[in-house]
């Protein structure tokens, strides 16, 4: 199936910002390994990665790191 009409929607698909009909069309192409759509989504993912880079990183505080480690411990315990 021709997917040229989907070419301008790949980023919006990855952002979850297009209508369900268009999203379902792209997902259908992905599910049947459409090379055009997979390539387009791959390029779109690279582009989004670049666009989403922050101007500067925000380092973790000791409290934030400690809080994450605590949640990690709880999650690990729940898994076991």
């Amino acid at each position: 199936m021709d997917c040229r009409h989907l070419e301008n929607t790949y980023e919006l698909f990855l952002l979850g910002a297009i209508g369900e009909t268009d999203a379902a069309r792209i997902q259908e192409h992905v599910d049947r390994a459409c090379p055009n759509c997979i390539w387009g989504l791959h390029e779109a993912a690279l582009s989004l990665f670049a666009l989403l880079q922050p101007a500067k990183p925000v380092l973790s505080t000791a409290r934030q790191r400690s809080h994450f480690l605590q949640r990690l411990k709880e999650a690990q315990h729940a898994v076991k």
Partner: protein
Amino acid sequence: MARIADHDATAMATLFDQLAPLLRGMIQRMIPSPDEAEDVLESLFLRLWKPMGRQGQSKEGPEGASLEAWLFITARRDAAEWRRQELRQPSLRMSVEEGLASPWLPKSREIDLLSSRLDLVGRALAQLPKAQRQILDLVLYEGLTEVEIAAAFKEPQGKVRDHVRAALSFVRQRLHTLMGTWTADI
């Protein structure tokens, strides 16, 4: 990646130390409250230990798939959803493939290369018309849809849609050129 899939807390803590600062910078641009932003960030990392969507328990992508790319795109979606809940806007969460086995995920080496050339991406963005750049910011960082932007600017939906899609396509094509030739300048 294999150690994280095996619920190795030390590996997860190392990953957090490496990537949390950049992810936090992006999330805090969308979620002003540091505590709320941190909750979104922590939940994102912890999701790596849970079954994900259609991929079931699989955390391993195709060979060399970039966990960093997955984290950035998923963090943006999570932050946008948080904003929409706060503003009581309808959820946009759709059945986008979330697993690390997604066939479109860039490879780690591609992300490394791109990360070393982000200055050129900034220059590509600077070439966009002001209106397109403004609208792109609303899509990427305010989490607005094309319909919502059209309503906010009192512009026809078709015009806004054309702006959004033209801007995203322009950046993607510029990036393709950049990634295709290491010495490319734009």
